């Protein structure tokens, strides 16, 4: 049985593009379309190779990018007298800027003193209403799925070129199996490095299964994934509640 991973943690094609723009340190108002398109397609390929449920939006964006690219390649047509000829990238840039605004707004929001995370109100003992959600603290998941795929791409690159057959079906059983073995590792260790979970000599299929297992664990919120400033990605078991940042008066044991 083919195993299709549906990921609602995906941030969509615009997020991927912004990610690539940032990663390449290019100007959003002057996107080098060829480079970005190429990388974008590489990502899609990686996702598809894992049977990740690549949403139609991703494919649509791919064709938009290719379309813009071809338009840019065309020599400026006879309309030489029109310097204000619209840049084919303009519409895309506009969308990216708009989306980026909200991404920023979201980052600002989460920086506020949040009720239930940073500040607390009095808990009423007797009155109506009952329990409220805010009794829980709110955290943001730091790592973007893009970065995870990016890291995975690196791992794939390191593999020997032998099995380039990207068409590959993964069965649920093997993913579940791998999920269990990762959890087992995490029950002994507090955390584990992302790249250490992949054995370089393992068959490609095995490696993909491992990655799918990680994604699934993240989706089920059974693990936390963090990236340190030096780019190392680590997985933590979610239920062992260690507060994420070191500044806590933390539990002994």
């Amino acid at each position, binding site marked *: 049985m083919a195993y299709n991973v549906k990921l609602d943690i995906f941030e969509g094609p615009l997020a991927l593009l912004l990610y690539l723009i940032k990663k390449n340190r290019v100007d959003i108002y002057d996107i080098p379309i060829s480079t970005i398109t190429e990388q974008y397609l590489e990502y899609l390929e990686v996702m598809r190779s894992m049977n990740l449920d690549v949403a139609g939006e991703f494919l649509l964006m791919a064709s938009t990018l290719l379309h813009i690219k071809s338009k840019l390649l065309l020599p400026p047509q006879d309309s030489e007298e029109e310097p204000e000829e619209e840049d084919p990238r303009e519409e895309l840039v506009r969308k990216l800027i708009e989306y980026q605004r909200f991404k920023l707004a979201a980052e600002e929001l989460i920086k506020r003193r*949040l009720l239930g995370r940073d500040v607390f109100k*009095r808990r*009423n003992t007797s009155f109506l209403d009952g329990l409220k959600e805010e009794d829980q603290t709110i955290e943001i998941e730091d790592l973007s799925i893009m970065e995870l795929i990016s890291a995975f791409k690196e791992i794939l690159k390191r593999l020997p070129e032998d099995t380039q057959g990207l068409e590959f079906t993964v069965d649920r059983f093997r993913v579940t199996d791998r999920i269990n073995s990762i959890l087992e590792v995490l029950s002994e260790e507090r955390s584990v490095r992302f790249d250490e979970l992949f054995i370089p000599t393992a068959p490609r299929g095995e490696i993909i299964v491992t990655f799918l297992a990680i994604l699934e664990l993240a989706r089920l919120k059974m693990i936390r994934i963090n990236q340190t400033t030096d780019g190392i990605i680590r997985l933590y078991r979610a239920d062992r509640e260690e507060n*994420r940042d070191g500044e806590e008066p933390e539990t002994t044991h």
Partner: protein
Amino acid sequence: MEKNLKPLIEALIFVSEQPLSLNRIAALIEDTPREEIRNALKELVEDYQKEDRGLYLEEVAGGWQIRTRAEYAPWIKRLFKLGPQKISKPALEVLSIVAYRQPITRAEIESIRGVDCAGVIKTLLEKNLIKIAGRKDAPGRPAMYGTTREFLEVFGLKDLSSLPTLKEMEELEKTIKDELDAEGTTPEDNSTGRDNIPQEGGGTDT
């Protein structure tokens, strides 16, 4: 009576489950000019600002609330043995789109994010951070979403107009651009007309 205004207000805010608005306070304390209540509140805020307090008084979600200071969160979490409730990046993004653009339909949110948002919207509804704020007068009468009072409370916002303003956002953008521009390639000024994206959410507060 007048002499006791401040402690009375303190007691009321303390017991209230929800942020207590000036109106509400005024309704409870009869025959007291609003001005006096306002002054008492101001004094109270100052009292709570003293250095050795663990609490502070803040105006959130249209009312006044006593809260613990952020620096004591670690111990409080310990007291409650709180586990973090994660909010995903996509969820946070949708939340901020709703916050700035409300009322907004799912299709509109999706056109901004460029990706399906059904699951995320459901989560936010369950967390009571957004609500259905009406229905659009369009085929199918799609639901329009808005933020809730809980949203304001959780994010410590007085009202929707206290969301970071456009100007602040633009500055942020500039900072980021500057960072990127370390590379070179100066941006031509083709900043498209749509500058004011996160508008200060139209006063839908219900």
